[in-house]
């Protein structure tokens, strides 16, 4: 069992930055509330995966190199995405093999955690559900499932929420058809895949769709929206934050979220509000790693 660190780096990912900032905000709030100090290096951009998966390794490496430089301290790097975490953990060592800075890349890779993995395996987070009864369908990204091997983490987090019922959909482990540039390069196959995914999720009739990866959410929700009648969707971090904070009618929204939760304005030590929705289990309290 890894020791509980008192400080971590947060890598927000380019997709969260532009499309789902609330997921990033909620993730950091969850971490702070568990007593962890969060460092967000402002120069972070993208992990480099789009270029890596397109075969442009030199370009991917130059972008990856710029990210690696942002995480010098020997503390965990937490990422709210299985896909970007997989890029850093699994592919950085491949991308930098034989390069002068290979050792740094390997070091960074060894400190990478996908968010749900970190919440469950490192923080042993305990959640108290304050929300109304709700059903959710979970879509686990392929990178979270197979590359990172953390598919069970999102399930165990949701399993802690007493008022949340998970509904299963057909072919759950199957890819949603996003695949980054695949969706644009092979649009016909991608469309066939996501249309099937949407049908299966709709058939399960969830109130909400939850995932740990914003790429999949973008793909699935975009398809639902085009069909009309989209099932509301959220990144797991945003959903968890909504469930454990005592403001069910004021889910964090955009920049206003922080005003709804003034207690979160300071990071460490945890504010007096911290712990209201979050059973802390006495498992943290400033041990350094």
């Amino acid at each position: 069992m890894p020791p509980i660190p008192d400080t971590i780096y947060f890598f927000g990912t380019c997709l969260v930055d532009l499309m789902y900032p609330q997921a990033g905000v909620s993730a950091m709030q969850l971490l702070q509330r568990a007593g962890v100090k969060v460092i967000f290096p402002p120069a972070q951009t993208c992990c480099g995966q789009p270029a890596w998966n397109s075969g442009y390794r030199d370009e991917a490496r130059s972008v990856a190199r710029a990210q690696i430089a942002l995480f010098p301290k020997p503390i965990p790097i937490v990422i709210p995405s299985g896909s970007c975490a997989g890029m850093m953990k699994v592919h950085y060592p491949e991308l930098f093999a034989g390069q002068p800075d290979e050792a740094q890349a390997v070091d960074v890779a060894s400190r990478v955690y996908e968010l749900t993995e970190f919440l469950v395996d490192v923080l042993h987070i305990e959640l108290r559900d304050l929300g109304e009864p709700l059903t959710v369908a979970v879509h686990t990204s392929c990178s979270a499932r197979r590359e990172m091997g953390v598919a069970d983490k999102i399930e165990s987090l949701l399993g802690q929420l007493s008022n949340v019922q998970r509904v299963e959909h057909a072919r759950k482990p199957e890819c949603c058809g996003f695949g980054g540039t695949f969706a644009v390069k092979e649009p016909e196959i991608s469309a066939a895949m996501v249309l099937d995914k949407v049908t299966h999720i709709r058939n399960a009739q969830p109130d909400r769709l939850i995932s740990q990866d914003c790429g999949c959410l973008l793909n699935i929700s975009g398809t639902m929206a085009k069909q009309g009648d989209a099932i509301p969707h959220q990144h797991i971090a945003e959903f968890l934050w909504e469930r454990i904070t005592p403001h069910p009618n004021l889910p964090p929204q955009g920049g206003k979220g922080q005003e709804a939760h003034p207690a979160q304005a300071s990071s460490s030590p945890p504010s007096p509000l911290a712990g209201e929705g979050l059973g802390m289990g006495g498992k943290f309290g400033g041990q350094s790693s």
Partner: protein
Amino acid sequence: MITQFRQTVRANLAKPEVRANFYRAMDGLMTRRLDQFPDKAELERLRTQSMAIRANALSKLPELLETLEANLIRNGIQVHWAETAEQGNQIVQAILERHNAKSIIKGKSMVSEEMGMNHFLETLGIECLESDLGEFIIQLDGETPSHIIMPAIHKNRIQIAKLFHEKFPDIPYTEDVDELTQMARRILRDKFYATTVGLSGVNFMVAETGTLCLVENEGNGRMSTTAPSVHIAVTGIEKVVESLSDVPPLLSILTRSATGQPITTYFNMISGPRKAGEKDGPEEVHLVLLDNGRSNIYSDPELLATLRCIRCGACINHCPVYVRIGGHSYGTVYPGPIGSILEPQKAGLDVHGELAQASTLCGACSEVCPVRIPIPSILNRLRYDGVRKDTSNTHTVGSGKRRTLSEAATWKTWAWAATHPTIYHAGSTLATRFKGMLPTNLGAWTTVRSAPKLAESTLHQQVKNLGVDHE
């Protein structure tokens, strides 16, 4: 411009009956495989063992092939080496001519498909009769296999019944699978005795003993290799294993991964022609060993893993792309994930390189591959080889041929922006601020999806209010 591959895919996606056939079949195969591996730890142990067996064989491929050849010759099997498909066909042709054979009966062999053997022999006026039921069906319909172990899987029972009725109008129409099978068996049985030359593939070649192993369910493999007086086996050079004790673990994981069977109905070990005093068996046994690009794959330490394949088809059965587009969309002999790594390497990235692109890299294939071939990593490598500027360090055929100036420039610009955070973030902020002005039609993305909605402000802007450290 829409590629040929995309056009074929479009056409095949628009055939609901074919899609339903693939769905039904692949669902069944996935379930049956799962039922064979109730103990996950045992499965993983067996996969590691099987990978090691294949990796070991490949690590000494040249030596093992020499040992194999010596032992085959000692057993009375005649060995022929073919560098290309054309040479392979000529070897087969020469054997047929020596025996004055005007026809050949074939057990299932993907390598013979790879050689285009039927077409080659038919242009010489030699009749090729497929005796595997699936192959028999598609031959009747003038098609190619849509799957490496179940060649007619794209057809359902009714379609097969109609095909039989059309081709054999004298026989009463039936949709009963057993009756259809019996019908084919009766037609084929007489041919086995009337034909001088039988052909088969090979699953494993044992170097230590000079034995050819053949895995099959219908008995047609045994018939093709024993009833005619000449047996020709064709296979790829990579199919060799070192010792006899390597076979049981591979056989066990092969049949369970492929069709979800604990063991196939027939397992043949061919160790030579009929010996003096024996009552049956062929008088001559030949083995044609095909290279056809394999040596080139062998020369790359990373791509070498491609050759570990034991052709179980599990990667195909679990592929979310294959199940939707079907085997014929690939335009290659080997479809699905294994085809997408093998065919671009054999034919060149300029010819089949797009197949490496036609994957989400979801990893469903490598999760089930019994010899742990890292298919997504190889796809990634082939994408790299396709667009790399400096091709001096790679032997992959067609390297660099997929590089376009416009795509290369796009990635260069992207990399420049993503390594200049101030400019990058100014760009993101601007984008969110003026998101109303962004296009709502994003080409391929918006055919089935709404345009993605940018947030009101980026995480970088919002994080400022969050009490986190900036370093």
